């Protein structure tokens, strides 16, 4: 593996070049290129089936594109396993919440720290010696995230019992626990009411400000996308049809057609 370079704010943290992804005969993504700059909020939007989630899956190594290159922190690769992506600082949340339903909020977020744990499995099983010391350090990190996301009151509640909006917040917490450099959010606001959406927006902006995390997000709520993101890339049927600031994208005829339909 090529050692990761230091990337200054404003430089491309991640570059996607001419990526194509096929499932058998189905083309999910065709020849898409864009970049994500360090410290920005980058939105990926598009109608249903445009290939947005596939794109995220390509970025964090879950899918391997047939063609194209991905450059992350200066290292170019065609294939990467998800756990390698995770250890390189890419964290994500899922469209359908993927938490451990029977475990408490605290434990779920603690899971996000697993990668950072150094002590051996042996000590962890017995929760003794170095593992105990380490757990205290990690617990503090997790408590800071709990405080950050204002979920103190559900610290010990099994997440399966929580309303959807809070589960999404816990999932964000777990992703943050990895101290990611690049955070991928797959529809963080789906199924939320207005107030929950506003809370989530605030958290996303705070994450960017406080931790300097670069964020790529998929979202359907246009108001949210235009308010939050620095730049937007628009996909339709697996192709990129527009790329630019929210204002540019809003004014783009191809985007308007894709969203509103064209008279035939």
């Amino acid at each position, binding site marked *: 593996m090529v050692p990761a370079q230091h990337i200054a704010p404003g430089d491309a943290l991640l570059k996607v070049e001419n990526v194509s992804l096929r499932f058998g005969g189905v083309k999910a993504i065709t020849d898409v290129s864009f970049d994500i700059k360090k410290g920005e909020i980058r939105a990926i939007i598009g109608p249903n089936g445009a290939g947005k989630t596939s794109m995220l899956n390509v970025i964090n190594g879950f899918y391997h594109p047939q063609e194209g290159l991905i450059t992350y922190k200066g290292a170019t690769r065609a294939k990467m396993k998800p756990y390698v992506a995770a250890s390189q600082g890419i964290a994500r949340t899922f469209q359908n919440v993927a938490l451990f339903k029977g475990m408490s909020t605290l434990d779920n977020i603690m899971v996000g720290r697993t990668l950072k744990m150094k002590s051996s499995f042996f000590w962890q099983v017995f929760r003794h010696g170095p593992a105990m010391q380490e757990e205290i350090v990690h*617990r*503090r990190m997790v*408590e*800071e995230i*709990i*405080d*950050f996301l*204002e979920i*103190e*009151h559900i*610290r010990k509640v099994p997440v399966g019992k929580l309303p959807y909006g809070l589960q999404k917040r816990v999932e964000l917490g777990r992703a943050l626990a990895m101290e990611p450099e690049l955070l991928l959010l797959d529809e963080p606001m789906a199924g939320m009411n207005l*107030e929950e959406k*506003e809370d989530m927006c*605030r958290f996303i*902006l*705070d994450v960017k*400000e*406080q931790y300097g995390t670069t964020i790529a997000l998929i979202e359907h709520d246009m108001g949210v996308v235009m308010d939050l993101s620095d730049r937007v890339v628009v996909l339709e049927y697996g192709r990129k049809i527009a790329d630019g600031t929210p204002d540019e994208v809003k004014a783009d005829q191809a985007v308007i057609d894709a969203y509103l339909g064209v008279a035939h």
Partner: protein
Amino acid sequence: MLADATAVLDTFPKWLAHQARTRPARPGMRHKDLGIWTEWSWAEVERKVRAYAVGLMAHGLQRGDKVAIIGNNRPKLYWSMMAVQCAGGIPVPVYADAVADEMAYVLDHSEVRFACVQDQEQVDKLLSVVDRVPNIALVFYDEPRGLRGYDHSRLQAIDEVIAQGEAAMLADPDAVRRLDASIAAGSGDDISVMLYTSGTTGRSKGVMLSAGRCIAAARDTVAFDKLSDQDNVIAYLPLAWVGDHYLNYAQALIAGFCINCPESPETAVEDRREIGNTYAFAPPRVFEGMLTRIMIRMEDAGWLKRKMFHYYMGVAKKWGEKILDGKPVPVLARLNYAIGDLLVYGPLKNVMGLTTVRVGYTAGEAIGPELFSFFRSIGLNLKQLYGQTEAFLFVTCQTDTGVRADCVGPATPNVEIRIAEDGEVLYKSPGQFVGYFKEPEKTAETMTPDGFVKTGDAGFFEKDGQLRIIDRAKDVGKLKNGALYAPKYIENKLKFFPNIREAVAFGQGEDMVTCFINIDLVAVGNWAERNNVSYGSYQELAGHPQVYEIIAGHVAEVNRQLAEEPMMARSQIGRFLILHKELDADDGELTRTQKVRRGFIAERYAPLVKALYDGSKEADISTEVTFEDGRKGVISARVKVMDAKIAPIAQAA
């Protein structure tokens, strides 16, 4: 130097120094932060506060400057009040959940020069109204999250102010001297704090309380309830409310007990269990909430547990209060109660975090007798007090053995009470206010020529010397048929049912009493879940025919109770409706202390009030609602009106 400053304990800064000297190692304050209770001893609290005060003085805080305190119960905000007082300023706590517009009024009226706030939310609110409050020079905040990108020309972290103060105290002995001089210069005649009334009637007024009077009042009650540094309180009431300032601030500084700040308002119940507070205060609403949750959980419990609960609640109802009052109780009943305590009451109190409570008070509103008895019967020493901001809280309070549900107790030590000819309660108390800020004419209106304060409440003394409050003096009225009508009395009876969250009664000068009802979403929602009643929104649930049936049953029960009371029998509820939205302080329907504003509601829902009296079966209403961020929207609905069952009036024998 210090000894001189505290020779006469007539201000709170002097009391702080006194506590730091006499019990330096005792915990003065705790805060649950990142899941761990952090503790400050009285000596540490004093050190922080002194440094903070020096920092504030360096920022230009002058004697007599007002400083707004806005946020939840957090140590740094309590320290802010102490530090401001040390520097000779006057803290003005403001309700943290007030919308920006309300806040602007108070900030402008009180002429605050600085504000100490909790977090970004409050900073945003302040910034949104900053051009309407030109006096504000600087805003200090506790939690830095989200504020990094803000323009810091008028913003600073409280931590930084404290650090600057600490540095200044090390570098410059003059700074220490100036602080000590400022503390020593404080006298009992200084205004110690300005508390804005909740505004049940019109705009809120700034109640000026002097240090000496505050301390006199708090000393009386500390002695009355034998509070000591071994006690613990959990601070969860709004900072701006007199209850919090009295019980958590004034009494703590005088008795030297520990103020425990919960992690967040939502975790207060769990935090209370962890701390095991010994002295508790809660408005009836909080007790109502606890009882509702317990009743719901019991409904969901297994058959055996339910059986056991109901049996032992019966035992508690029969003997619990007598045991608490030290009255003679048969040995077997005592034994049975002890078993109940082991099986039911003990665990119940544990769940509610009331196990270690030695003295509990409720006030703020009349409490339903059944609700009150429930908590007393399971062994909680719950008492009532009656008070108001103008009195610095206590006017009357009950002794440990003289508790009854329908009265609020005899006058607190050193308080004088008189009943005016029209039934209004008047008092003279050691803590009584100096006046309303900038409104001398209102001060004059509230005082009698011989120095008594008018409470605005109607009441009378029972034979055993306890005061009984019926209602607001101006709300007590008569129906067209001449029957006495006390809206609050009826509303409280309705509100005892867990399904009813709020009720608003009408009837002044009409031929019958009618009322609006707000269902309790938790209780009714739970019922709906168990009975497979589907609903999409609060509005839909509120209008559900089966819900109407349940509420009709409750109304009929209230009528039956009213029929048994000769005074009230003729003012039974004739018709009622269930409101389509929850009454909300943001819409001005409730005060910030959650009291209904009857007049405002009658105006706002005029078509519904009309429908209650003109016999129609339903009515349309559309109302404007205010969201938390200040935006407005409209809710419209068709509301059904229902006739209530009138109970036959019991014939006096």
